[in-house]
């Protein structure tokens, strides 16, 4: 069961871009340790903006993000100690091997002087083929790169993990393997916030699901609630409903 302390918290969070687009509208959200929160929504609904705000990639127009109780805008470097990130399409440095990439990002994440074996162990954990450890990443498939991406998140060992559509474009087997790793991380007590289009897998793994539309969190359901409701129907109904801005 998730403990009660929220590791990721968004308070009245809004983002309006310079071109006037309101990408996020007063979002309130909490993710606790040992909990997986899936954000669903169409393209442009505000899922990636939420993650970008948590990572201080963009400044919020109003509101605050907290990671492990630290205000991300006020002390971004301290906040980033406690979060790992996996993007939609992990490209990494193509001229480097898997281990070299892992080594670089481990050092950035504050894990200096790890042994080669430590890197190999993490890569084995995500089921990356042994022969790929010392191969250049530019020859990797997307599935292999995503596995390496989650290795980077694992090796940092941060209490929170943000994932931006990590299974997009993966074949079913690779996506399944990816979610198994997430399930393990959840068991370890990580707070996981994942944006995704994959309703079925979201239902499988999430403790809570939020549906976003036009920058607003329009619906939130717990795993228990979803046992009695059809998430697909709820999602499609929300997508078909009248635009919120009308």
């Amino acid at each position, binding site marked *: 069961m998730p403990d009660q302390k929220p590791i990721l918290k968004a308070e009245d969070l809004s983002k309006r871009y310079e071109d006037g687009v309101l990408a996020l509208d007063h979002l309130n959200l909490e993710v606790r340790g040992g909990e997986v929160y899936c954000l669903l929504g169409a393209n442009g609904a505000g899922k990636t903006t939420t993650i*970008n705000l948590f990572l201080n990639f*963009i400044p919020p127009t109003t509101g605050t993000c907290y990671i492990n109780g630290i205000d991300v805008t006020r002390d971004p470097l301290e906040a*980033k100690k406690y979060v790992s990130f996996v993007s939609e399409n992990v490209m990494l*440095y193509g*001229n*480097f091997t898997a281990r070299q990439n892992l080594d*670089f*990002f481990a050092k*950035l994440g504050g894990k200096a002087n790890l042994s080669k074996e430590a890197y190999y162990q993490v890569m084995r954990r995500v089921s990356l083929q042994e022969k790929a450890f010392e191969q250049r990443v530019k020859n990797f498939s997307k599935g292999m790169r995503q596995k390496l991406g989650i290795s980077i998140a694992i090796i940092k060992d941060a209490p929170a993990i943000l994932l931006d559509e990590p299974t997009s474009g993966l074949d079913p087997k690779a996506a399944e393997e990816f979610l198994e790793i997430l399930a393990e991380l959840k068991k370890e007590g990580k707070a996981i916030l994942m944006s995704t289009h994959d309703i079925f897998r979201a239902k499988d793994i999430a403790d809570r699901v939020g549906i976003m539309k036009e920058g607003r969190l329009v619906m939130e359901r717990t795993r228990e609630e979803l046992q009695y409701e059809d998430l697909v129907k709820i999602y499609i109904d929300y997508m078909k409903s009248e635009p919120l801005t009308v």
Partner: protein
Amino acid sequence: MFATIFKKELLDQLISPKFLIVFLLCLVLIPSSLLMNYSSFKSNYLEYDAARRISKETTTVYREPSILSTFGIGLESVLPKIVSFDKYSRDMKGTQAQNEILSNITGKIDFIVIVSFLLGLFSILYASTLMSGEKESGTLKLVLSNQARRSTFIWAKFLGSYIVLIIPLLASFLIGLILLLLENFPLFSGENFSRVLFLFLLSLLYLSTLFSLGLLISTRTQKTSVALLAGFLIWIFVTFVIPKISEPLAALIHPVQSEEVMKRNRIQVQNQIEKEKAKVLTPIREQFLNEKNTSSQKGWDWAGYVKARGPLAKDYEEKIGRTLQEFDAQYEKEKNTALNLSLNIARLSPASIFTHSGLDLCNTGVVDRENFFRSLQTHYLQLFQAVLSKRFEDYYDFDEKGVAHSSHGGGGPGAYQTTYPEYRYQFLKLDATLSRTAPDLLLLVLYNLIFFAAAYFSFARYDVR
């Protein structure tokens, strides 16, 4: 954090194919251009030395070629090798350009050209993908999701990549210098070493300026393809368009008549006074230079003519000298105004600044051209005092167009019992060159700071999406 990103950048660039390409190109082009240009200098110097030894006691002078043309040819192939003076004019001939026709069509290659064009291009292209590449591949998000400051990231990437760009330049330059030393190039003689060192440092400054410009492009673009295209277009503008249009544009703003027109006008001015002189001298000519010996005419008496013409011609000769000097000074002033305007326009481009300053360090630039012509003027005045003032040429029988159909000339008293002043072109001293190029160097530093600061603030404010 800085060390981690810096090391990663060094390694990433060192193992990339583009590093190998730049390295090989530099390794082939720089040493070979140095050797070829040194060989060309040696043959020019032999030619100059032989000519100078043979022709002592004349009114002809020879320009010593600059040994540093090995690094930058510049105006070396355009300035005259031989200048012959007469009383009121000088004749310049024997430019190296006349002997190297194909090289002048295709353009000559030297260290300055290689750095300005080739490494300049690589510099912009290298840097223009630094940030755009990270954005496109998504690695920027991954890096910034950690505790890396943006300022640390941009500095580490800039320095790491810049050092990798400099490695091929440094290695091939050192190899080139070793090969030159094996060919007995006097690197440690006089100011040569200091000038070469300054040239190399100037190259580093120039490349870092273009690198900063490339970095600015990369912070303003999202895709490497767009960044490369933008970088290439800016490179064309900086290395071709601005330097090439500066002179025609200056000529449009401040037109100066051509050398040929100037010479024609000069002759007209001279002839006008010569005609007045002829009127005064005609009775003397008839008196002394007549084949028929009558009671009033003494036949051909050259000595009598020379003696009698002296006091009468003196005022006119002084007037011709003064008028033509004023004419030349005015023309030179006009030309210098246009040249300075053109140089100021060219200063909009870091490539122009580098080329002009680099050539000045090689004693083959605009500053040395001025120095050369100033030395010619000084020599002319000495020569005039010692020799030319004692010679004369009297023109007669002017037609309606103002053209003289006969003349009598030769040496006046003491014209051939004099010592000719010696001419040896003195290259500008390094401190004089540096004081002339200092504003340009500061401008290059300023461009560098502006481009880097713009890139820095652009990246700091960039919304990572």
